[in-house]
């Protein structure tokens, strides 16, 4: 299991956090997603054998958001 925190550049309201958290319902291998509009970040806990980081990044982009930076194993 891996944990990564992504800084999201364009979260504009608390609803953005909810939209990003909904990725956990769509992508297999995601254990949990915690997104915070206040911090402008989302923390993803995932099984790297089931889902790759590029899948996660693509899912974020498909939701209309831009990843600013990534911190690993926070």
């Amino acid at each position: 299991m891996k944990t990564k925190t992504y800084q999201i550049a364009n979260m504009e309201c608390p609803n953005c956090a909810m939209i990003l958290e909904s990725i956990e319902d769509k992508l297999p291998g995601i254990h949990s997603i915690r997104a915070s509009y206040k911090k402008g970040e989302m923390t993803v806990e995932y099984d790297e054998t089931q889902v790759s980081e590029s899948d996660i990044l693509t899912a974020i982009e498909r939701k209309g958001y831009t990843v600013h930076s990534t911190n690993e194993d926070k």
Partner: protein
Amino acid sequence: MEQYLIAFITGLTTGGLSCLAVQGGLLASSLANQIERDLAEIPPTPSKKNKRIARPVRPNAALPILLFLAAKLTAYTLLGALLGWLGSFLTFDPITRAGLMIVIAIFMVGNGLRMLNVHPFFRNFVIEPPRFVTRAIRKTAKGTDTATPLFLGALTVFIPCGVTQAMMAAALGLGAPLPAALLMFAFTLGTSPVFFFVAYFAAQIGATLEKHFMRFVAVVILFLGLVTFDNALNLLGAPSFSGLFATRQVATAPVEASDTLTLRAENGGYTPARLTAKAGVPVTLNIVTENTTSCARDFVIPALKYYVLLPVSGTETMQIPPQPAGTTLRFTCSMGMYSGLITFE
């Protein structure tokens, strides 16, 4: 009846925009099913820096918006009844009301600055729903398109905007369930057209125009926050912008000092806005109303801790104890919207 009309107009003019800024996120969620379906139908567009993907046209957006608004209307009417019931156990003196208004003003200004992206600090003014709520929302969203907007519309009751909070305070002040429920119903009904049109057309106009519109809303909220703060200052009897304006307006027409004053409390405020009284003697103040139904009826002199609910039509007489020369007494309505001065010479 007039108070419900005022509540409706407040909702229609300012409440709609203010609520949209705070609760717009939930409305967007209620459209999320449709958005996701639309996005799935178009190839993914690489997002530019700091830009959202332009949203496609959603012709079926009207139904979820209407369901959302119906649920919101019901929830706020019930909340009004609850507040009215609670209000029957409480009394709101002008100082408490002013304190509440200051908190609301700070909240509104903070939200306006947040929406303008002035500094990340202002994100703290947002009420983020707890994770179990967002999860529950998502679980609902997975079900049918009908349940989601209904549930989310009802949830707006937990994130009232500044203007709504002011209206909630007014509902609390009514101190009876039915009038308070009707007040919240009228106000929420007033906010509905703005919600509907903005939400419906925001679904069509795309991200760029939406951003401009939300900036406009932010400026309006900022302005309303400052007005609320100014009203609170009036209510505290402190110097305020509107008080300064009222003083200047009549400065050119000095009146001879008298020990009997007559003040007309009209629907649009108090006339004259500045009175001159004799210093050192008891002064009789006659406050005259004639079909006055606005908040000018709730007459307050903060410095004397004097508060009276005037009759719709009639004359209320109060005795002001002797005041030293040079004293200035501010009077205001209980909302701080209308104010004036009595100067002792």
